């Protein structure tokens, strides 16, 4: 077996994207956002994370990426019998980057061809299994995002920073709003999403009941 590390060194790219604008972090003062506003912000956050552009790769321990959303018709596992394995990037079987090429630079043209596999400047992979969102309710996702055990050890500002950091590397977050082809982008905008995460956190990370 070849090492996972080798693959990572191979496919990590230097990123110097310029064409697509990243979001900026403007942390609201604590207490400046009401619970009600926080809940409304979270609802928008949930619309984003449950959108196919995000949730298709935030799947569970079966390590199956999903195909769902308007560009796919029926919801089903990724075609071609793909299983990303415990590595979450297909090292055990077919590495995701066989088709989902790791770009040197993520630009507006990077995913121009309809029905071609999407690409980013980070090696294509599923999100860590703790981040399983596919098919989960708003309450479940909210509990996950509030729990450092299941959100990568981050507080709410950390979550927003994570988004901006990923986008800054031309990664999946940036792709979610610039998916190219005939794919529907995630709702709102990257900046709105970052602002909503921050507003939700500033309101004390309130979670919906269901």
């Amino acid at each position, binding site marked *: 077996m*070849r090492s996972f590390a080798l693959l990572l060194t191979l496919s990590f790219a230097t990123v110097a994207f310029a064409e697509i604008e990243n979001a900026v972090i403007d942390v609201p003062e604590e207490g400046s956002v009401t619970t009600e506003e926080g809940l409304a912000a979270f609802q928008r956050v949930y619309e984003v994370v449950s959108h196919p552009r995000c949730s298709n790769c935030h799947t569970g321990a079966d390590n199956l990426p999903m195909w769902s959303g308007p560009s796919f018709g029926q919801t089903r596992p990724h075609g071609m019998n793909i299983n990303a394995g415990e590595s979450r990037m297909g090292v055990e079987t*077919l590495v995701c980057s066989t088709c989902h*090429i790791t770009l040197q630079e993520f630009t507006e043209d990077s995913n121009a061809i309809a029905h071609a596999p999407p690409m980013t400047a980070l090696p294509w992979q599923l999100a860590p299994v703790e981040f399983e969102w596919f098919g989960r309710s708003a309450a479940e996702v909210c509990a996950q995002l509030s729990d450092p055990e299941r959100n990568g050890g981050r507080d709410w500002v950390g979550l927003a920073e994570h988004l901006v950091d990923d986008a800054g590397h031309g990664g999946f977050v940036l792709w979610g709003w610039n998916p190219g082809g005939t794919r529907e982008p995630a709702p709102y905008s990257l900046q709105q999403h970052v602002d909503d995460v921050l507003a939700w956190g500033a309101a004390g990370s309130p979670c919906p009941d269901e």
Partner: protein
Amino acid sequence: MRLTVNGTEHEVDVEPDMPLLWVLRDELNITGPKYGCGIAQCGACTVHVDGFAVRSCQLAIGDLVGEVTTIEGLGTPDNLHAVQQAWIEHQVAQCGYCQSGQIMQAADLLAANPQPSDADIDAVMGGNLCRCGTYPRIRAAIHSAAARLQEA
């Protein structure tokens, strides 16, 4: 643009977004990798980059990092790779157009997993389309190649 293919370095004057497949086929006349779909649906264009299978129709030359091996570099009629020997032994090909890609993908599979089960084969080869339907023979040939490589 510089690239190394099958151990030979080449200089090509192309746009950075030209897919590797078309650099190989139309600039360097290396025609073993085939054009079938242009969207990573068929796998006929599969090559290795530093040993890993990659769909060359998706890899823009500007994103290439590493050395390229095509079917021509895997083995030749006079010096066959174990996978190619097995492909001949099992008379796998019908039209043969997808087989460059199938063989390159199978070689990558065996490098990672020297004794694949049928399920392992199905998990890796699912991205390579064969319109003639040679799948039963592909499975058998991969098992043969695995045995051959074990002996070697």
